[in-house]
């Protein structure tokens, strides 16, 4: 049985800036995780469905358009509706501190702002995902 951590890297909203998402996806893959990248312009519904189908333990949301306050809480709401609250959600992008706090209160495990270290992200995911015995 494959014990690798399964991660969905997702680009929600209309934002096409995928440099960060692609770098994160590669870094997680290089760290031994199994990474599914959604591609661009995914609705919260599409992202949560993909997470369900791919049976991932982690969803990484990359948003650089400023639409995070509308999009991320919607993803969290859908996860609750589908009883998927055990999925770890992390977000990254141009998200100011006060918004980051708001997103964390909505259930996001970590928010990574520009300049965040790839190692720190990898370590956080490794430490936070509950691995099946």
């Amino acid at each position: 049985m494959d014990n690798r951590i399964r991660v969905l890297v997702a680009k929600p909203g209309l934002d096409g800036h995928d440099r960060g998402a692609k770098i994160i996806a590669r870094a997680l893959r290089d760290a031994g995780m199994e990474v599914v990248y959604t591609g661009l312009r995914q609705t919260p519904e599409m992202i949560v469905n993909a997470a369900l189908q791919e049976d991932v333990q982690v969803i990484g949301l990359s948003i650089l358009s400023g639409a995070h306050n509308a999009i991320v809480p919607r993803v969290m709401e859908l996860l609750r509706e589908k009883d998927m609250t055990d999925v770890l959600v992390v977000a990254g992008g141009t998200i100011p501190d006060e918004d980051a706090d708001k997103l964390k209160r909505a259930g996001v495990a970590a928010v990574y702002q520009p300049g965040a270290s790839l190692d720190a992200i990898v370590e956080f995911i490794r430490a936070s995902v509950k691995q099946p015995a």
Partner: protein
Amino acid sequence: MSKTAVDAPVWSTISGIPLEPVYGPEHARPLPPPGEFPYTRGIHPTMYRGKLWTMRQFSGFATPEETNQRYLYLLERGQTGLSVAFDLPTLMGYDADHANCIGEVGKCGVAISSLEDMEVLFRGIPLATVSVSMTINSPAAVIWAMYLAVAEKQGASWTDLNGTLQNDILKEYIAQKEYIYPPRPSMRLVTDVVEFATRSVPKFNPISISGYHIREAGSTAAQELAFTLADGIEYVEWAIERGLDVDEFAPRLSFFFNAHNDFFEEIAKYRAARRIWANVMRDSFGATDERSLKLRFHTQTAGCSLTWQQPYNNVVRTAIQALAAVMGGTQSLHTNSLDEAYALPSEQAVTLALRTQQIIAHESGVTAVADPLGGSWFVESLTDEIEKQALAYIRQIDDMGGIIPAIERSFPQSEIADASYRYQQSIERDERTIVGVNKFNESAGAIDLLHIDESSQQHQCEKLALLRKRRDNGAVANALDALREAARGTKNTMPHILDAVRAYATLGEICDCFREVFGTYTESSVL
């Protein structure tokens, strides 16, 4: 000694070009002076003595009413041209009330859904005299039609209009990713604009062939140059295919490059760009008008180089980048604001960014002499090297059948993704220093940011609902039918887009006609 070598193991440009410790006469050859073919040293004999670059800050946020106020503010402070940033719904051809736009309206730029919004955006700004650049691509023809209609209403003659439409769809597939339709019908719309401009709006630049976004996506300097010029070659081929004479439209093609951190590499890039373009236009396309051979460009400092940490450091980065653009002979310049790693810039931050340009222009002395670094053994050698690397890419793309087949097989996309990952890893491994990020860290105090709330969306949706009631909906339907018909045929769509816009058909309605006829594009994502 050995300590220094360990601390600074990378002796290459930011793009990875290896560097000698010192350069000598063997590294350079004499060049013709500025203003002479192939214009490596600049397109004018005396450069900024004749005319300074245009100081053009890219700006737009929230509603057209608010952005109009920002434009008037910038013009009062000595800015010499406008540059419109549109929000993501507008860039993607959606009206503000479309279901896909929740949370996006007015966030990355100004929201424009109809001619009514465009009228507000330019209220009190005479389009006959102020030059306006518009960063819009997939829906470029529609937004430009709205602009032309506003000019008409102001009583300005189209033949007097100055400005630039980005209208560069190819780099969208490569880097910026704001495409709607597949490449070939998109290229047809681009060519419709080029043809219409050539015939009816002759002083307007119908395309700004852009490397900026390619670099922001993580490319090297040589990739930025190569993919941009390959895109340029494709536009020229389509316009000639349309029946235009190369010297009729080529003088109005303009370019847009990034100014990243590596000072000399950037200067070399601009110099190499001019030389390659002049040779391509003369030798591959037989252009004879001198203006067709001269590569004119706008520069923006590198948004991706700005750091979240210690944001005031960004002022210094931007000043160095802007200086490179000027020493490289740019025709216009946008300097980023210190807060742009966080949000769109505050009024205070954008003023400081504009002042940076004014200090370079009026205090530094660099404007007195054309191509001040010409003849530098190092700069000439670097110019040759970047030219060589870019030409190798252009040949490779040629062998694939041109940039469209190359895009379809994700060639430029993969090259950029690889370069971007390499760059990020070099920072992670501390092979490269980013001040305040992986060295000299400290926690910095907060800065004041521009906040855009959700009221823009509501405001825009309410205006749109009123417009849909007030306008003559029969006339809108007729105009849209005629447009759909034109899209199915081969004639220029611009006159029909203009009719639809004048009837107050919305951006979304017009783009939907094209979606119906052309279909939409989904990329195969490469990691």
